[in-house]
């Protein structure tokens, strides 16, 4: 099979996939390395990439992260189900598209205006875009192909993305669960042992719940916060 769209780095401004003759697929078909294939073949290749390449990561976009209707919530649940089945998978969100300068925290989020920062920082070699509006997915996918060696998988609710190595169209909750089943199948074929579990939390979140924290939670160190009876604290650091 001819591979037109392969993982980068393909240069500072790579030729758009469309200029290389890649066309979006009709319903029921998917893109694999720029060629039209059936969805099952594309899903198998996507599953293989997420199971075998380093630091697989899911990048959920605003259409998944914000529960603005029942379908978004359902899709979000399906994404979590998928994440559970991919060994050592991480979720790094793209909550919106606003430019963020002077910098973002690449461990905590991905920004479509400079997605390569997050990918290079975390050494991500396989990723899934899901719930990202098409115009920003196009921008990000091409930037990723330009500057990184990441294998990109686009789960698009519309017509798909030419610049992704795997692009599946009309993806809603049901199809995400199909991909999950494919991941389980390929994982078993490869003999990878894995107990389903959710990825680690976002590292930017505080480890303690300050709102419900009690002085007793500090154990032996509680006296540092609360003077004992009769004790007078004269000096503090």
């Amino acid at each position, binding site marked *: 099979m001819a591979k037109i769209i392969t993982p980068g780095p393909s240069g500072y401004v790579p030729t758009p996939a469309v200029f290389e003759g890649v066309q979006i697929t009709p319903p029921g078909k998917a893109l694999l390395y720029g060629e039209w294939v059936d969805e099952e073949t594309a899903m198998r290749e996507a599953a293989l990439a997420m199971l075998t390449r380093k630091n697989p990561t899911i990048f*959920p976009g605003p259409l*998944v*992260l*914000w*529960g*603005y*209707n029942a379908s*978004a*919530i359902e899709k*979000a*649940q399906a994404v*979590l189900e998928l994440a559970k089945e991919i060994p050592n998978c991480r*979720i790094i*969100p793209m*909550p*919106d598209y*606003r*430019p*963020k*300068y*002077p910098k973002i*925290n690449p461990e*905590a*989020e991905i920004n479509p205006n400079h997605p390569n920062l997050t990918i290079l920082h975390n050494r991500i070699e396989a990723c899934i875009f899901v719930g990202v509006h098409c115009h920003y997915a196009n921008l990000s996918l091409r930037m990723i192909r330009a500057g990184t060696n990441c294998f990109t998988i686009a789960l698009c609710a519309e017509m798909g993305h030419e610049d992704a190595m795997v692009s599946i169209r009309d993806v809603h909750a049901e199809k995400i669960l199909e991909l999950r089943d494919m991941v389980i199948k390929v994982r078993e074929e490869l003999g990878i042992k894995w107990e389903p579990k959710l*990825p680690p*939390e*976002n590292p*930017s*979140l*505080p480890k303690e719940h300050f709102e419900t924290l009690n002085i007793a939670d500090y154990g032996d160190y509680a006296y540092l916060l609360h003077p004992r009876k009769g004790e007078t604290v004269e000096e503090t650091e």
Partner: protein
Amino acid sequence: MGLEYVKISPGFEKYMPKDYVDLVKYGQFGKQIDVQQIDQIKELVEEHPMCAGCYMAYFVRIFYASLPKPEDTIVLGTAGCARLALSQAAVPFIYGNYGDTNAVASGLKRALSIRFPDKIKDVVVVAGDGGLMDIGFGMTMHSWFRREKFTTIMVDNEVYGNTGGQESGMSPKGVQLKMAPKGKKFDKINAVELAKTAGCVYVAKLAPTNPKRIAKTIKRAILAARELGPTFIHVYTSCNIEYSIPTERVLADAKEREKNDFGFYEWMTDEAKEYLEEQEKKMAEAKT
């Protein structure tokens, strides 16, 4: 937009960056906040790449804290300093080509009123003196002539600060700038009188020295624009770089200008006055 757009999907709370979790928990969405509570909320804009000591950045911060319904607001800007901070806020932002903000805002407001006939959607243009009174002059004036229902806020730094210090129509007469070494030969445009003549129903001019007053003015302008017609606020936001104002003197400069030519001025039509009194009464009742 709407409040449903600022609720995290169940299960994803622990995958969101802290900024967004805080924005949902402690932000101003769905709440009426007093601008003096700004230190107790998660602000809509925090980081920005504007110059140290920039008074426009301060105004943008107060502007966002003053929005009556941030979850249903769209902000428009254009080339210039303000958009550097405006575009980083947690409120949808549209970047118009230089000068066409009010034309884009007109179309947007009309489209929103067709798409969401039962909802209030606020459209606010925040652009500089170059964007509104020089290059965008025609489109600004015509949006007012057409009585388009949105708010225009001019952040007037009296210079083209981004491009090296050319004089603008709003630079004061006689001022010497890097790219106007002989001094400006013409008077500053009287934007406030133009707005009144062109059909704005609420017009104000201020130097941002008093946050409460800024908030009240912005709220009034947005409320009046919802129902009655175009509204305009002219704000002095000095450029400390091009006018060589030391950072620690920026506020003192604003106060000085307030005493001289930027004293607080507010004008509204009788209809707007009646409407705002009624709205403010309702808001006060809702608070108690």
